[in-house]
């Protein structure tokens, strides 16, 4: 059977071997060719770099903040509802707590919840997707039906319902978020495996007598990894936003820990008094964190998706 010859002007044969390709590569660089030379790959590379910088910056800030904050974020009580000043660069809350200290420390819960939920999603979604799509048949049909039903459901509503039943706490929040996002992993892995399964090189693997787990492990999985990496980073952003949403509704962790989401809820009550600083700074932090992950995800998907490359 004849295929049409592809005819994209500008797509010529790849550059011939250069010395660098022969040097042994690190594991990560093997998964994502070219991660090592990100910024040389145009705007997408810059996006990834910027995203990594933002996320790393926020993580470091959260990690060192307990040692460097000017005031105790919970116990210190200064002037009430003071606008930003030299002493309190981000103002104070209605209880007189220092916003700067709260902002610096307030990412801890969100980061924990996001990381944990992404971990759970990855641990369940990826193997399930791999297995289900490779095995096929009724098992695949059933799992897909269930997963699709969950996927079609409003994620936040579901997370709220689960969180309402489970009660507060980092783990419970992470679980309720994970339930919502497992379908994304499952679906992307499954659709990728299904399309890769039809490719000739998988057929070639079968024709040399490879067993099914060899095919799955050596031929299919390595080619699914780029999509998983993309989903993972985007999912980080989703998890951060969902966690913020849950906290905003009042399903977050206790009030004894500074938290950006909690400050937004609190700030809502102070809105009519014009205390903009109580919501603005934590809000910007949430945006930054989500933006960092989105940048990484978007940049990676552009880098790894040859379809859009011209």
């Amino acid at each position, binding site marked *: 059977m004849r295929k049409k010859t592809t005819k994209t002007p500008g797509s010529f044969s790849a550059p011939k071997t250069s010395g660098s390709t022969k040097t042994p590569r690190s594991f990560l660089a093997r998964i994502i060719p070219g991660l090592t030379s990100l910024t040389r790959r145009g*705007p997408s590379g810059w996006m990834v770099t910027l995203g990594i910088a933002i996320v790393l910056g926020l993580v470091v800030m959260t990690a060192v903040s307990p040692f460097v904050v000017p005031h105790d974020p919970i116990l210190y009580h200064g002037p009430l509802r003071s606008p930003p000043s030299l002493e309190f660069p981000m103002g104070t809350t209605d209880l007189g707590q220092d916003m700067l200290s709260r902002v610096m420390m307030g990412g801890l819960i969100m980061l924990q919840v996001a990381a944990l939920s992404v971990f759970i999603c990855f641990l369940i979604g990826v193997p399930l997707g791999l297995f289900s799509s490779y095995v096929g048949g009724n098992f695949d049909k059933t799992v897909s*039906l*269930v997963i*699709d*039903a*969950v*996927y*079609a*459901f*409003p*994620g*936040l*509503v*579901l997370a*709220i*319902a*689960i969180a*309402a*039943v*489970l009660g507060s706490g980092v783990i419970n929040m992470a679980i309720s978020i994970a339930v919502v996002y497992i379908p994304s992993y499952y679906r992307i892995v499954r659709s990728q495996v299904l399309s890769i399964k039809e490719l000739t090189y998988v057929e070639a693997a079968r024709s040399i007598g490879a067993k099914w787990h060899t095919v799955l492990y050596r031929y299919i999985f390595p080619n699914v990894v780029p999509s998983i990496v993309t989903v993972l980073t985007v999912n980080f*952003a989703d998890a951060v*936003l969902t966690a*913020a*949403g849950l906290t*905003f*509704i*009042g*399903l977050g962790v206790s009030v004894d820990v500074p938290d950006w989401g909690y400050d*937004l809820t609190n*700030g*809502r009550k102070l*809105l*009519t008094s*014009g205390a*903009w600083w109580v*919501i*603005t700074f934590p*809000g910007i932090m*949430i*945006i930054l964190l*989500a*933006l960092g992950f*989105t*940048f990484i995800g*978007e940049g990676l998907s552009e880098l790894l998706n040859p*379809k*859009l490359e*011209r």
Partner: protein
Amino acid sequence: MGLRSYVITRIILTIPTLLLLLTAVFLVMRVLPGDPAALHFEKKGDPADVERLRQILGMDKPLWQQYINYIGGLVDIGYLRQHGYPNLGKSMYQTSEEVGGQVFSAFPATLELAIYATIIASVLGIMLGVASSKSYGKTPDHLIRNFGTITYAIPVFFLGLIFQLIFGVYLGWLPTGQRISNVAPPTTITGLYTIDSILQGNIIAFVESVRALLLPSLTLGIVLSGVFLRLTRANMLETLRLEFVTAARARGLQESTVTYGYALRNAFLPVLTMMGLQFAMLLGGAVLTETTFSWPGLGKYMVDRINFRDYTAIQGAVVMFGLFVTLVSLTVDVLCAYLDPRIRL
């Protein structure tokens, strides 16, 4: 396969999905917590009170029987005829109240918000998406893409709060809560204030309801437009590369014809399908928007009831959200089939 048989198939396929969804809700709300009645009292209640609540809500029966009652209530046409809403059981918080009735009276507010937000999001998203794809790799494209990325990262309630702060508190132009203020709401016909007020020729109520709608629907619409923009852009880029687009240009057609009649017309179908799926996301955002703007819709109802640990009410709201999403995705799929000549074989 003809269009009609496609529609019939699609409706038949909705039944198992719905059943699955209802079962999932049942599992989460009734089975997962173990004993929702005890949970309502935060496990500190008087055993007699708990037992009484169980009896009223039928939670003293075995689970399978509860399940049958739950599904049976939903398909009880007689009840629906009599009350005008399905049987979703009684509220835990106030056992005299029917959850179905409360959910149904809160729903129009959510529907109205969702409709306007969808309009804003799709108009903005598609326009920007087309503009972005047409200037691929150039400055406008970068700007629009960054707009999309940033809106994606903004928590919807934060944007809502900022809008309230600017337009409500500082400028005082627009109300920051409720569906209508200063005047009495229009008499209920559809439950959508903007429609009802027009139907009754009540201009003042119309203006007031639009003023109230403006901030919440803009908030939700802008946040969602980022997603729609990205979908449109990606699909447009793919379609613009297809041979029939070049072929159309090679026939001397005007660039606007090529963009809209050829590229967008074909890119629109996958975008519409994805929009159907994203509607679920919009509803999630609606819950937060309603909370932010004290918008008395389904989402706010649900969040309010969380504070009372009213699990039957939460369950009712979740079921209603599920039905809504299912209905929308059904409509979108049928619409897509109608728009795609390849399905009309």
